[in-house]
């Protein structure tokens, strides 16, 4: 891949949109650069000092020019803002039919995991013309998942899930870079995204690891860690039944609701007291330090796989979930 180029290839649905805004910005830049440079050159030559005692006559102008060259640039920048914001909006909302893939970043590699169980290191195979929603976690420091050909980038922050999405439009092989400085081998935390025709992707998937799908592995963990002791599917356990919970609004103890998405599941495993489901006691132990990010995403996928199949839902870039409105019984000195 040593070909010299001056402009990156467009390989996603987002890329042309970003590039169009770029062209507009370039046009404005060239226009004003030529205008200013031109004016300076012209004035410098035309009004060069011709005699030692030359004294320019000072005109007192009004504010018309000032207003003009404030308002017009402001208008142009507002176009830039609106255009850029709308692209950003699109880039933040994956379509409901996106396929789900997980990525875990750690110093200094990317671990990718497909629902079907295929794992990759520093490589990501995806089908062309299919929206892909990538949910990402970090095991240590902040990383950033950057695919220049797609024009996408998203920081991966430890302690939360980050999400990005893209629809690849051109089969081929594209650079993947870590774009947030993360230590010694930051520039080695790179890889490739392989965009394949649908048939080739299916072949690749089925020829892949026989280790079981993410959900199957998640189920094994669910049993190993004894989650099924409390989370029973017949509602007889001390914990909420998890069947069909994904994507629903969950009623919390003390009022308020939260959407049961991947971040909620992850938080419930690591900080169980943060959001207690209404009608249940705060007795779940924490698994902080007992599960890796990779195991977490498998558990999450297992819970997602229980019950009706939900939509992928909008991107949640690690927003801190809405603060609780009131306390749990018994955990504060006060009763409201």
């Amino acid at each position: 891949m040593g070909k010299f180029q001056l402009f990156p290839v467009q390989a996603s649905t987002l890329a042309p949109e970003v590039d169009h805004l770029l062209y507009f910005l370039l046009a404005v830049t060239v226009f004003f650069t030529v205008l200013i440079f031109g004016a300076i050159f012209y004035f410098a030559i035309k009004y060069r000092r011709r005699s030692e005692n030359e004294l320019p006559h000072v005109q007192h102008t009004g504010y018309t020019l000032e207003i003009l060259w404030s308002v017009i640039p402001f208008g142009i920048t507002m176009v830039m803002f609106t255009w850029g914001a709308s692209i950003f909006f699109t880039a933040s909302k994956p379509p409901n039919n996106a396929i789900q893939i997980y990525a875990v970043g750690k110093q200094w590699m990317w671990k990718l995991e497909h629902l079907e169980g295929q794992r990759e290191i520093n490589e990501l195979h995806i089908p062309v013309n299919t929206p892909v929603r990538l949910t990402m976690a970090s095991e240590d420091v902040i990383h950033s998942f950057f695919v220049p050909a797609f024009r996408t980038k998203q920081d991966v922050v430890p302690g939360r899930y980050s999400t990005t999405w893209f629809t690849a439009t051109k089969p081929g092989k594209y650079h993947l870079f870590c774009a947030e400085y993360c230590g010694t081998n930051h520039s080695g935390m790179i890889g490739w995204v392989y965009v394949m025709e649908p048939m080739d992707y299916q072949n690749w998937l089925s020829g892949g690891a026989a280790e079981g799908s993410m959900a199957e592995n998640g189920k094994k963990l669910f049993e190993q860690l004894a989650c099924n002791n409390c989370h029973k599917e017949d509602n007889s356990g001390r914990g909420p039944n998890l069947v069909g919970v994904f994507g629903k609004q969950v009623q919390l103890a003390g009022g308020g609701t939260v959407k049961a998405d991947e971040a909620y599941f992850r938080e419930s495993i690591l900080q169980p007291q943060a959001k207690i489901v209404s009608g249940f006691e705060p007795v779940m132990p924490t698994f902080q330090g007992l599960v890796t990010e990779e195991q977490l995403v498998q558990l999450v996928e297992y819970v997602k796989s229980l019950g009706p199949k939900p939509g992928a839902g909008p991107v949640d870039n690690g927003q801190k979930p809405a603060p609780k409105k009131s306390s749990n019984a018994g955990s504060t000195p006060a009763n409201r």
Partner: protein
Amino acid sequence: MADHAPTETLALRVQFDTEAQQKDAATLGMWLFLVTEIMFFGGMFAVYTIYRSWYPDVFAIASSSLNQIIGALNTGVLLLSSFTMVMAVRAGQLGQRKAIVIFLILTLLFGGIFLGVKAYEWNQKFEEHHIPGQAAFHLDGVLPGDQGHAQLFFSIYFAMTGLHALHMVIGVGILLILIVQARKGRFSASYYTPVDVAGLYWHFVDIIWIFLFPLLYLIDRHLVK
């Protein structure tokens, strides 16, 4: 315009044209410095606000582990010290040299008491295993999954009261210098600016504490049964 005299006095340094101008400049300078201090502490208050809004219940429990009686008494001591500081400035205005020294010493004493009580409180926290970052950290009444959040409260507690105490220590140092200078008769009714300006600093450090006390010690206390 008039040339300035080649020799300068305490009240009229060579860069200034009048004594009033110099006093004015010194006062403005100190107010500006206090604005920088507001921004400095402000960063910590912002951190406090964010984490308290995320973990309100844990913060309330952690706050209740602080001794509000001692905190309130200490607040009173600091307020008293601001009063004696005001009296020192007043003595300066009136040119009462002995009184300046006495009130500065009293201010110093009250400041010292505050710091001593603070040291006691910190030691209490150490005994109760409320020092964040230590393996033995444990806050009663908070479940294991939330102990980390409790550590956040105490991190903020130590950082903010620590920084405040550091400013008090600097204030104590300034007071010591002023006491020595006052005893040597450096201040008079026509020049007591350093006392005035140190007073501004001392009051500011006091005001920071007035905010710290309720925010750290009194979270949800009104809800205690």
